[in-house]
């Protein structure tokens, strides 16, 4: 099968610590894939390794047929990968508009995508002049996703989109992500299994730095034993 993103057996070290010890992730084009696992299992590091922020020492990361290992993070991102990090990483000193504009990869990206972004997150239009630090958690999360939408990204890496958000906001977020999936392929890290199971079509479970199981989400939902074993939740 042809994958848009094909991660094979990557090993990543942070300092002397061997964080990822063999992770495989295969993402079909146009799908939503969820990375599942306990806290500290290595999901976030996997995303960062794909992007080259924590470059893997071994293994291969192929994106649309091109090997990414060895490229600098900004070169990887420029190939069309958007990143929505944990804790959002909104630029506090920049206004909402600047937070969007800074993500432009070509001149006019922002002008072109403006309408689409505001249809997805109508609130942002109202807040456009505010500084990023003044936004609430939910608003920051929307801005973080919107920021990844400004350039033409073929792949979005979204880390913990529901973390710390109120249930109503989560609903909104999920609707937005579903709509995004029609435009781009998405890899999602999500602690909240309910959210992940409703959004994703495929999953990869990561346990202690290794990918231990992968498959279709609808199979996992019924596999209570696996869920209990790796995710702890019922």
């Amino acid at each position, binding site marked *: 099968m042809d994958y848009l993103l094909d991660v094979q057996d990557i090993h990543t070290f942070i300092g002397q610590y061997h964080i990822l010890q063999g992770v495989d992730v295969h993402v079909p084009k146009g799908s939503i894939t969820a990375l599942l696992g306990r806290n500290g299992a290595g999901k976030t590091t996997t995303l960062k390794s794909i992007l080259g*922020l924590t470059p893997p020492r071994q293994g291969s990361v192929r994106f649309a047929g091109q090997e990414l290992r060895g490229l600098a993070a*900004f*070169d990887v*991102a420029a190939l069309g990968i958007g990143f929505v*990090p944990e804790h959002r990483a909104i630029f506090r*000193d*920049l206004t909402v508009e*600047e937070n969007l*504009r*800074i993500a432009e990869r070509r001149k006019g990206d922002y002008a072109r995508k403006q309408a689409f972004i505001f249809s997805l997150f109508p609130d942002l239009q109202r807040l456009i002049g505010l500084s990023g630090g003044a936004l609430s958690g939910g608003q920051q999360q929307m801005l973080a996703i919107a920021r990844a939408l400004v350039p033409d990204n073929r792949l979005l890496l979204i880390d913990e989109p529901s973390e710390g958000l109120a249930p109503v906001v989560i609903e909104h977020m999920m609707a937005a992500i579903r709509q995004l999936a029609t435009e781009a392929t998405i890899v999602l890290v999500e602690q909240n299994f309910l959210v992940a199971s409703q959004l994703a079509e495929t999953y990869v479970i990561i346990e202690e730095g290794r990918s231990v199981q992968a498959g279709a989400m609808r199979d996992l939902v019924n596999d209570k034993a696996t869920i209990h074993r790796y995710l702890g939740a019922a």
Partner: protein
Amino acid sequence: MNTFLRKNLLLLLTLAVLAGFLAAAGRNMETSDFVITLLRGFSVGALTFLVASGFSLIFGLLDVLNLAHGTLFMIGAYAGWTVYVRPDTFIDLVTPLALLVSGFTLADAWRHLAVRISMTGRGVAAWIGFGVAALLLAYILPRYPIAMWNVDDYAQSPVAYSLAASQGQVTPPPAATFTEIAPGVAVLGLLISSAFIAFGLAWLRSGGQAGRPLTWRSFTRVAMVLLVGLGALIFNDALTAWLFALNSNWLFAIAVAVSVATGVALGGLMEVTLIRPLYVRPIYQLMLTLGLSVIGTELVRAIWGRPEFTMPKPELFAGTGAGCPATTFGDWLTHHCSTVILFEGRVRVYNEIFIPLVGLVVLISIWILLKRSRLGMIIRAGVQDRQMVEALGINVRRVFTQVFALGVGLAALGGVLAAPSIGLSNTMGESFLLNALIALAIGGLTSYPGAALGSLLVGLLQQFIIKYGQIGIPIPFTEILFKPTPPIVPASTVLLMVIVLLIMPNGLLGKKE
């Protein structure tokens, strides 16, 4: 408004206390003294700001404490002096520099070539290339004719030339000519060695990645550089004569431009070659920049000598004849007086009015750059979260180089502006680096307005203490007149820094981590 007050209560209180001190300082002296001291404070503050702002931009974005910043400030001053007082030396230097740079302007082409010719043992081949280039340069450069001063002979030393220039009687020394080496050989040799070095570097760095696509731009760039280099060679005499005859205002402008360009080039070169490999082990950056500052200082000593000298002021600020000192702005415009009367005191126009004005202009321009340009946006974002900027696909490496070059360029501007007012010395870099560090600590290390406020406070405090060193401070209720001794000047700023940091650990305008 209320929340603003509450959030910044400490800052406002501190500022109020400082303003109170300033007012109290003014009560014990004549108005004219007060105004002059104030202006001198602005002047020192502006120069400090030029060092501090660049330092703070570099520290904020790159996390590099550039301890060579003061030395680069000093190099800016000496480079400006060279263009201003000895334009012949400057023109002589243009050709070899341009030829040496020409190879690097073709970097894209070399990279493509390097990918094509991938052979085993290219590391060795590249080093052989470097060796050949080094030999060639070792042969050519000592024989290349450059009209220079001579630090060992007083009559031909920079000090003597400065003196002559301030009296407007620099006699252009005989031009250096090609006697030991044929011009063709020199030009060809420089071109070849430059190409060898640039290609060798491209070869060593090519990790099988093809670079950016080749455009005509890189070829026009190399053509421009060659044109400048060869043009300066062919029209050497004419250019020299023209510069010597040029109005000193224009020459000063050229000197400032060249000095800033030198700073930008040195900064860019330093970041790309030496700082870049060290982002992973920050402590060693300290050692590297320290080593570089020692090297820079020693080079300045070797080239320009140890004695201090001053760069003459341009005509615009040097008038002394009839109608001077000027009492009105119109007077000054017609006579270009070096001093004006302000509140019955004589104020030196260049030192106490021009420098603060330039400082203000730079302050505003950089502010606009930060607020309005894309580069500024990236800098502001990067100060907060470098990794995220990188994850957006922005080439942070290039931005780092640009910011480093910008920061050093600002320091060089400060240096060349300082040259006619405080003069050139081997220690000017050190003292201004210390000033800038203190100013940044007071204002907030990575805060741009903080750099401005801190520099201003440092400048004012120093100048008021110096002034009181002359007139003495009457201690209340006693007859004693306390005269601060010169060592108290630096001590006072240090003391202010410690007090401010103990009250507000992040500086007056610094952000909480």
